């Protein structure tokens, strides 16, 4: 099972280590540093490394490497999932997952790690359970603790640990009972030069924020559940009922959680909300190239496309860009060679356009690669797949909760090739 964990920052310093079995010297990380060196970009470091006596499994999140050391045959996905869970927990506790925040709360992080694994076996990874055992720091609590000598470690057994609903603590009480659901869809798509869709799919997620007293039993039903190709649920969802009736029936955890993830794959029609007309060309002679991009609305279900942004990773040889945008601003970062065009709202009457010339380092050959465009966008109040929640019912409790559903569509990995 998981033997040790090292947290390593961007520049390669180990700033925290935790061992769940015997202590392993941090020199084991040298193999990782070697691989990191080789990969150049931190994103490209292979997640599973073999060393003579150990295996190193790492994830890269928030400019930090979470590097775990294992010694025996352990499912790597198990380790990677766990590492992400650690990062999630840190984020959940302290608002962000960064070196600074971890150093500021090093003892709490250490206590958390100790609670999350025992001898390498996961012990408590549910945020609800953890929070009952180790309370997240708040300014108020730290002041109170200093004055009273109290502690931020709970001394009763977390109620969720052993019940059939480990995700929910007992005795929850609210004066305002509310249940909100956000249906968020991300479009992953690749469009080719001519604008034809090479590949498109929708990754959807339903995030919930449930603050309800007692032990409510909720049922969420959709107008068109057959849309979904693949679903994965929070453990609270009763799978049998989904199989039989296509409704989500569950006793919710308390607070924020991800109720389900779903997938609408390319076989179904995935609407592409915008079209992109582009041409980026470099000339054989003369140190320059041309760029011309126009974006227009396509299938956006009658809603406005907002937060439009185009990002282009230019070839190394491109020195500067001299462009005019009819809408929004553009920036070109010379060191990273990234061109960003921030458009904002998409106006169907007056299509935004960016055009102008690119200058190339003199003496270098014409760049061979074609830069891809990365598109960001948001459409409020619509799930692009057409998924709709029809109703939410509550059983088991008497009060009337506030209910609400919000929809949002975003671009995920939305790329246009040139």
């Amino acid at each position, binding site marked *: 099972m998981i033997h040790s964990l090292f947290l390593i920052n961007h520049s390669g310093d180990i700033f925290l280590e935790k061992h769940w079995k015997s202590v392993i010297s941090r020199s084991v990380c040298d193999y990782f540093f070697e691989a990191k060196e080789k990969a150049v970009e931190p994103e490209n470091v292979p997640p599973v490394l073999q060393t003579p006596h150990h295996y190193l499994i790492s994830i890269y999140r928030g400019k930090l490497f979470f590097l775990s050391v294992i010694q025996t045959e352990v499912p790597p996905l198990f380790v990677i*999932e766990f590492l*992400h869970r650690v990062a999630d927990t840190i984020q959940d506790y302290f608002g962000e997952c960064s070196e600074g925040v971890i150093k500021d709360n090093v003892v709490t992080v250490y206590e958390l790690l100790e609670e999350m694994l025992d001898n390498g076996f996961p012990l408590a990874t549910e945020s609800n359970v953890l929070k009952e055992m180790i309370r997240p720091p708040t300014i108020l609590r730290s002041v109170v603790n200093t004055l009273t000598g109290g502690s931020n470690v709970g001394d009763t057994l977390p109620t969720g640990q052993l019940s*059939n609903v480990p995700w929910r603590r007992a005795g929850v009480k609210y004066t305002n009972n509310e249940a909100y659901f956000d249906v968020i869809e991300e479009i992953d798509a690749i469009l080719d030069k001519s604008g034809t869709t090479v590949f498109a799919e929708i990754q959807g997620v339903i995030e919930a924020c449930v603050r309800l007293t007692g032990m409510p039993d909720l049922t969420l039903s959709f107008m068109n559940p057959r849309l979904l190709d693949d679903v994965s649920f929070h*453990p609270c969802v009763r799978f049998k009922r989904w199989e039989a009736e296509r409704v989500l029936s569950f006793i919710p955890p308390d607070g924020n959680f991800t109720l389900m993830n779903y997938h609408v794959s390319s076989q179904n029609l995935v609407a592409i909300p915008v079209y992109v007309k582009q041409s980026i060309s470099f000339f054989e002679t003369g140190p320059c190239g041309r760029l011309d991009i126009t974006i227009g609305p396509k299938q956006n279900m009658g809603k406005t496309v907002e937060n439009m942004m185009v990002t282009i990773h230019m070839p190394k040889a491109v020195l500067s860009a001299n462009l005019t945008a009819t809408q929004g601003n553009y920036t070109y970062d010379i060191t990273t060679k990234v061109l960003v065009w921030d458009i904002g709202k998409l106006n169907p009457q007056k299509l935004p356009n960016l055009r102008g010339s690119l200058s190339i380092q003199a003496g270098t050959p014409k760049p061979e690669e074609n830069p*891809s465009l990365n598109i960001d966008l948001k459409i409020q109040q619509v799930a692009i797949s057409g998924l709709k929640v029809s109703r939410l019912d509550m059983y088991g409790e008497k009060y009337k909760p506030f209910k609400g559903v919000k929809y949002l569509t975003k671009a995920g990995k939305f790329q246009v090739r040139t």
Partner: protein
Amino acid sequence: MQEWANQLCENRQFGSKMTDSKYFTTTKKGEIFELKAELNSDKKEKKKEAVKKVIASMTVGKDVSALFPDVVNCMQTDNLELKKLVYLYLMNYAKSQPDMAIMAVNTFVKDCEDPNPLIRALAVRTMGCIRVDKITEYLCEPLRKCLKDEDPYVRKTAAVCVAKLHDINAQLVEDQGFLDTLKDLISDSNPMVVANAVAALSEIAESHPNSNLLDLNPQTINKLLTALNECTEWGQIFILDCLANYTPRDDRESQSICERVTPRLSHANSAVVLSAVKVLMKFMEMLPKDLDYYGTLLKKLAPPLVTLLSAEPELQYVALRNINLIVQRRPEILKHEMKVFFVKYNDPIYVKLEKLDIMIRLASQANIAQVLAELKEYATEVDVDFVRKAVRAIGRCAIKVEQSAERCVSTLLDLIQTKVNYVVQEAIVVIKDIFRKYPNKYESVIATLCENLDSLDEPEARAAMIWIVGEYAERIDNADELLESFLEGFHDESTQVQLQLLTAIVKLFLKKPTETQELVQQVLSLATQDSDNPDLRDRGYIYWRLLSTDPVAAKEVVLAEKPLISEETDLIEPTLLEELICHIGTLASVYHKPPSAFVEGSRGVQHKRLPGSAGSADSVDSPDTASAAGVSEAPPAVIPSQGDLLGDLLNLDLTPPTATGPPPAPSSGLQMGAMDLLGGGLDSLPPIPLRTDTPQSPQFYHQSPSPPDYSPTELGGDLGGSPALGAGFGAPPAAMPASFNAPVSGGLDDLFDLGGGVGMPMGSYSPPKTVWLPAMKAKGLEISGTFARRAGVIQMEMTLTNKAMSVMTDFAIQFNRNSFGLAPAGPLQILTPLSPNQSIEAALPLSTVGPVMKMEPLTNLQVAVKNNIDVFYFSCQYPISMLFVEDGKMERQVFLATWKDIPNDNESQFQIKDCHLNSDAASNKLQGSNVFTIAKRTVEGQDMLYQSMKLTNGIWVLAELRVQTGNPNYTVSLKCRAPEVSQCVFQSYEAMLKN
């Protein structure tokens, strides 16, 4: 101390947010001293702060072990946080301060009785983490109580503690009966306890591969399946991985398990999903294919696999490695999902490369257009590694989907036109493979290729180009010029290019002999005289010899039809694939190697296999795949990179076989020399002393994962025949027979004969091992072997190789009655089970007192071998020289009398050709095998040796060996009262002399 205290006060004063980062700032001297004072402070709050500071130092790797007694003193507190902090410290440092750690024991024991289950659990958990032997004794009693605690939280913590304790002191755990308690916990009412018990047992079982810890039966399976629905996500992973080890009794049970596992495919945790996929993939094997449920299950598997690809890149990577296995086993699952593997430009490189691999595996006639368009797109990306692989992928598509070959070739030509250096080089390498797959189809592109000759700077591309020029020399007008241009810098080229150039020029010469005579002479002299690379030199000599002796044969050999390459070359070999499917989701599946190949300390890891036999029988039947299993550790090569048949033959030995550690046995050449030097003084010396220094001396059998072909014994005997031996073992030239260095001496004749493929029995004192029982006839068991006489005992030396997927045990052997009453002198000594892909050497001493029956041929031996699977029969022949006894030297007088006494009808005469020993050497050599020279006479430059030998059953054989100086042909006359043996004896003579 002051400063830090002041800082703390300041923080409070200004009400600023207190953080732990201050712990990082105190690095000045005297820090430890300050902390000591604080730890001993009376104020609770100060104590806690101090412990926190200690922990902070510890987490960043500072050594604070000196504070051990002070920290442990803080342990007796009712403040849970402080207690936990002290525990954290203890776990880290107890190992280095075992005596001090004992101080803490009392508190632990007390805490295990605490009314609060949280504290009981914490105590038992922490105690297990203190890896000090002395403490373990005190741990047993509290642990026993906690395992039976009324609170499930304590029980599940205790279950894990058993695993911890086992890690520290396995014997103790067994003696105390904790393993049984743990097994009982599998039936616990609480699913979390069940999951932890399974996890703990699995971990313990890993270090006890043969124990029956997780004895799965339908009842326990049912309990596990019930717990599966109710335990945490991590518990589900443990339970699913455990279920995957179970073999259902029949397809109905298999289906019912599958039905209960499928809901796990919808879990948000990808590790749960993949473990569920493993169980389903395995149990699916047992379902009949026409079952409706089978189809349903196939359909259910695709969406979750696709969804895994939208997760974080690290998860994607592991998922992709596994999907790679799944599409090889069951391509139908994802055949419609090609598009999800399309590469996004900002995917990490490790994801891109894996996606590309799967795209090729899924490529079919239906989707090839799409795939090619994508690949072409990728070939213009930035990342060089990725671009290269994309270009290679186009070539692989051409080989895989025949209909697309033309399209692929034209795509490749387009890419060559880009003139991007590495793209061009990769393209040329793959076009070479396309030529091999579809000969005489796309040669029109050669002109385009030749244009790019100058830009090639990588050995592989150069070698590929040279191969193309050589192979199609007759269609390239200026082939000689092209090749000549390479020849200029011959010595700066890499070996790969040199070898290829040599072969190409020889091909060219055979095709256009008139114009290229000079060129071929040039390259042969470069290769043989100016090179110190033994491979190159040997290949050069072979060609030289070939060309000078028999150009027709040369043509047949060099320009022989080449076997076609196919897509299969890059598939994982089926038996390995089956094993890897059983390991989906594990490290093995990421590395595509069986766990036995890399898991440390895996003593005899059980090889898993898929249930059902439909697929496995096929794979064993094919000798090709079976032999590939032996070298499965090497990553599957895309396509054999060397062009021609002969090249492949020679290149097999290009790199020294790493699996064979020991140096080769003294070569026969040396051995012979030594005997020469010592002359007759060696009369009574049996051959064994010369061999005992080889690590593979026959008294031992040793296991080696290497294929038997590499065994040193054989190589020793094989020296003359394998031109690459020198290279293979890096033996200095001095170790070779002298004739090896002289191109025209008779020694090369041998070389040529053998290199040309004339089969001849080999072996110095015992013939090389031959395959007696091929794996396909014996359900995966392969036996190759030979006979040897060592120190007067006849030995049957065998290499048993397990090419099946299950472990073989319980070996036994029996002989049929035979001509000389050979029988095993003892049982076959194979003590350890033979794991798949493993070989074992066994030496069986034989006696000659068994029942006798005349066989045809005389030296035929029928053998039965039994193992846990079945009984197998094979027959083999032993060289009769094994039966020559040590006291076979006849008195001169007796010899004379006997010779006369035996009627002339019983005399037979044979010729031994091409033997280059002088009479003394021959005599010595024969003496090693108990053929004794009684007298020697020289008449007119002809040596006559009179020899005798005695068989185990008392039959005497008399011989007259005539050796004429300068004539490589010997004449043997044999006289024996039982003339049937003469033929066998003659064969032995020839074998003995020629080795």
